[in-house]
């Protein structure tokens, strides 16, 4: 029963953290929006009492801050959700879309699509994630087939295969950028994780992919738990292992590819967030995936605030902040894996 209470508490805690990070993210910027005005505008819209708020605040809020905030939150959710799913799938806590090369593969796919024609409208933007998705799926299949040793996927081979395939994809991406017209120089900014597209269009273009993918991932926690006993036992327990793995790869790659398409390659979110959730609330994937999704949104919103505040008025790419936090964390996890003391 103790377990149930901590479970209920975990949902409210994660939601509360996400909500406060969202409000903080909206309020912080070159023009600082007073918290009272933000609340008045957000609530006022619902009850149609605009109040006596500066009208430029309303424009900044609705056409800049709010869509940027939502896109960042969605990106964090997608990366953390797919990270948690990949960790369960490979039974390896160091798996994350960046480490196993899925992000670079998606990046290559996205850049190929952008090289064909720079996405200006909603439809153009909706095509980029599809290309990124193809890149991501091909990468994960390649890395998995290289990393597999017999019936398991050891940490070392997974990381080595991920690094190798990822470097190759990144090299190809750079080559395409060098050879292409200067339109693609915008893509360089995009690659390091800057949210430069702006407005509501990327949000709307990414929502269908993310909604479907994250919905599936959130609901597959129970069979994913069974998979933690290994393919053989899972099969003997009546799980259709191959079908589950393919479904997970598709859903996790789709959300990761969508995140990469609109926000560039942001490292380690999918690694840090599920791990923290595991430490706080245990390894049960029924809770781990949805909680990682909520906390992933919160984490990236926080990282984005730091990116915009540290060298203000200059804004750093958010990927720099997550890498600065994530890389040491990754090394710490690797050290623990080496010491073989278990992961949760």
């Amino acid at each position, binding site marked *: 029963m103790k*377990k149930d209470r901590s479970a209920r508490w975990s949902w409210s805690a994660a939601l509360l953290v996400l909500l406060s990070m969202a409000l903080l993210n909206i309020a912080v910027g070159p023009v600082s929006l007073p918290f009272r005005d933000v609340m008045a505008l957000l609530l006022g819209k619902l009850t149609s009492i605009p109040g006596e708020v500066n009208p430029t605040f309303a424009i900044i809020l609705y056409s800049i801050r709010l869509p940027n905030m939502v896109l960042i939150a969605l990106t964090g959710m997608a990366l953390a959700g797919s990270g948690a799913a990949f960790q369960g799938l490979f*039974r390896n806590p160091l798996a994350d879309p960046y480490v196993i090369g899925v992000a670079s593969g998606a990046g290559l796919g996205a850049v190929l699509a952008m090289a064909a024609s720079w996405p200006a409208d909603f439809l153009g933007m909706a095509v980029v994630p599809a290309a990124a998705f193809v890149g991501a799926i091909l990468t994960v299949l390649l890395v998995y087939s290289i990393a597999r040793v017999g019936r398991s996927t050891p940490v070392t081979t997974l990381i080595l295969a991920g690094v190798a395939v990822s470097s190759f994809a990144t090299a190809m991406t750079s080559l395409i950028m060098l050879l292409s017209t200067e339109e693609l120089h915008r893509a360089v900014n995009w690659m390091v994780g800057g949210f430069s597209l702006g407005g509501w269009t990327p949000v709307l273009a990414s929502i269908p992919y993310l909604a479907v993918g994250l919905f599936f991932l959130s*609901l*597959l926690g*129970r*069979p994913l*738990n*069974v998979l*933690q*006993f*290994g393919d*053989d*036992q899972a*099969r*003997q*327990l*009546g*799980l*259709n*292992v191959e079908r*589950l793995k393919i479904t997970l790869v598709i859903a996790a790659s789709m959300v990761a590819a969508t995140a990469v398409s609109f926000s560039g390659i942001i490292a380690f979110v999918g690694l840090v967030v599920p791990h923290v959730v595991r430490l706080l609330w*245990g*390894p*049960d994937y*029924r809770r781990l995936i949805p909680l990682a999704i909520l906390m992933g949104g919160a984490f990236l919103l926080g990282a984005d605030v730091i990116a915009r505040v540290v060298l203000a008025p200059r804004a750093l790419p958010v990927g720099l902040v997550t890498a600065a936090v994530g890389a040491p964390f990754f090394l710490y996890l690797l050290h623990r894996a080496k010491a073989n003391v*278990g992961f*949760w």
Partner: protein
Amino acid sequence: MILDLQNVACGYFDTPVLREITLQVLPGEIVAVVGPNGVGKSTLIRAASGSLKALEGQVLVGEQDLAKISAPQRAKRVSVVSQALNLPEAFLAMDVVLMGRTPYLNWFERENQQDREIALAALARTETEDLAERRIGELSGGEQQRVLIARALAQATPVMLLDEPTAHLDLRHQERLLRLIRSLSKQEQLSVLVTLHDLNLVARLADRVVLLSNGGIHSQGSPETVLNPDALADVYGIQIYVMAHPINGNPLILPGE
């Protein structure tokens, strides 16, 4: 239901480890599989569960060919108690036992009250109800093994396969596990196929013994007939003495000059 292996060949990458395996396990019967290391005992368990497809021959439960049905359908007929190795240590014992309900649930379903009651009954049957809220990583080898048996019971199958259930257990826990397996087989009329290393345990537990050697069955029958010095010396390549247990008369197997 009868577990019926008919002329089965099984192995990896199309190379059979075992050939011409024909054996039956009747309801309420315990059949032990013995043989030297690497002879293919675990492979035989995997093939009998249908998780490793037989290269030749058929594995039948009742009249049903396991190769012709889906993984959930197989898991409603055959449960497997693997060795308690590399378990995901942070799961609660109750959650592990609930995973025995996997074949009865689709991916998106959660366990209902009935599944919970079945899991609790399985914990009670294996005397592990006190461990329900403990993490399996914290449990001793014997406790883990009993939780895995409870998980297999929650699958509610007519056939249960056990792979080296007494490995790494001390004498008291071996004894306790033997008694549990015996009473499950007799009271629930389970067909039990079990691999064991320790021939003295085999002599006391099994109704029948299948002795494996060189990729096939050397001999099968009652413990008294199969566990004879000549056959064992032949298979294990060392001198082995068999005598009667001074108290219960079971065969007692002793290696040595």
